[in-house]
């Protein structure tokens, strides 16, 4: 009895330290080629395999670079060279009815495979670009956006 109570307590402490309440992890970088950046709170961090991502992070790749990430709901997302995408919103709490995945791509090429949020609540997933928005029905797609900005 005492042993199992101790284990229970140790586990709940560990669980609390894993996922910080603020700046909660929404995914991580799995693949990386060349120079890429994560813009977080207006600061640029060099991308690294294993780096944990949080909501509002912006992923940017250079001219000879590509990056691949997995989000906590198993969504796969990658960028080719000269690309930029913001992880605008992410919520994955089916037990609380909170499901949301919004990505905002500004330029470049991207590939995307939807995960559990897309399966549980397709209307909660939106892939936005300057010219059109994609509504998703559990699927894989690729997008190319021309950089129109001066």
């Amino acid at each position, binding site marked *: 009895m005492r042993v199992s109570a101790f284990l229970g307590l140790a586990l709940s402490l560990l669980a609390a330290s894993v996922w910080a309440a603020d700046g909660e992890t929404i995914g991580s970088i799995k693949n990386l080629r060349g120079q890429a950046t994560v813009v977080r709170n207006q600061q640029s961090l060099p991308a690294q395999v294993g780096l944990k991502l949080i909501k509002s992070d912006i992923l940017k790749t250079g001219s000879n670079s590509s990056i691949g990430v997995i989000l906590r709901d198993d969504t796969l997302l990658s960028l080719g060279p000269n*690309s930029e995408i913001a992880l605008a919103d992410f919520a994955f709490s089916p037990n609380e009815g909170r499901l949301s995945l919004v990505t905002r791509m500004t330029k470049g090429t991207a590939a995307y495979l939807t995960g559990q949020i897309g399966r549980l609540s397709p209307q909660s997933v939106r892939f936005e670009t300057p010219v059109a928005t994609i509504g998703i029905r559990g699927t894989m797609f690729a997008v190319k956006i021309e950089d129109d900005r001066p």
Partner: protein
Amino acid sequence: MRDHRLFLLIPLLVGLLVSCAGPKPVAVPPPPAPPPNIFVLLPDPDGKVGRIEVSNPRGSEVLMEAGQATRVAKAEEPPTVPIKMSDQEIAAIFGPAMAALPTPPVRFILYFERDSIELTPQAKQFVPQILAAIKDRRSVDTSVVGHADTAGSKEYNYRLSRRRAEAVAQLLLAGGVAPEILEITSHGKDNPAVPTGDNVSEPRNRRVEVTIR
């Protein structure tokens, strides 16, 4: 922009033809380039094909077949009618992005003895495989998620499935997994493997899923 240039070209061409004796080669203006913004539907890694709808205030198009693409010139113009893109063209444009897409996560589904936090003997056999997969993938993001069926109260099920997740996590930690990579949680009855009505006992929904990303 191109239209203006075409306009200027035509009076110039006419002018040349009239003034010169004999036929002269006529420069043909290049066709307008297709809109540069492309949305293409691809098959999943398991070959299944879903649907996407590409829309803006001017219109929308639904893509339902692998390789179908729609193009959009700008937000003020509707997406074009979908056409098939060749594999070569898709590879040429999207090759680097597709090569960077991570391999899909590995998932293990563990079942429990009825109303208990004891793993079935068969589920226990998965633990070494889970530990190996975490190592192989160098995962920094592995979730251990308890699930319940819709029988019984929401609270009871949430607590039981949460304790089951914690029991599995404990086995993984004992196996040397770093605590900071684990997310231990429960989705209660709200993420069923097999959708059922409310209050339905369904053993396939009473599970812990370990997903290694």
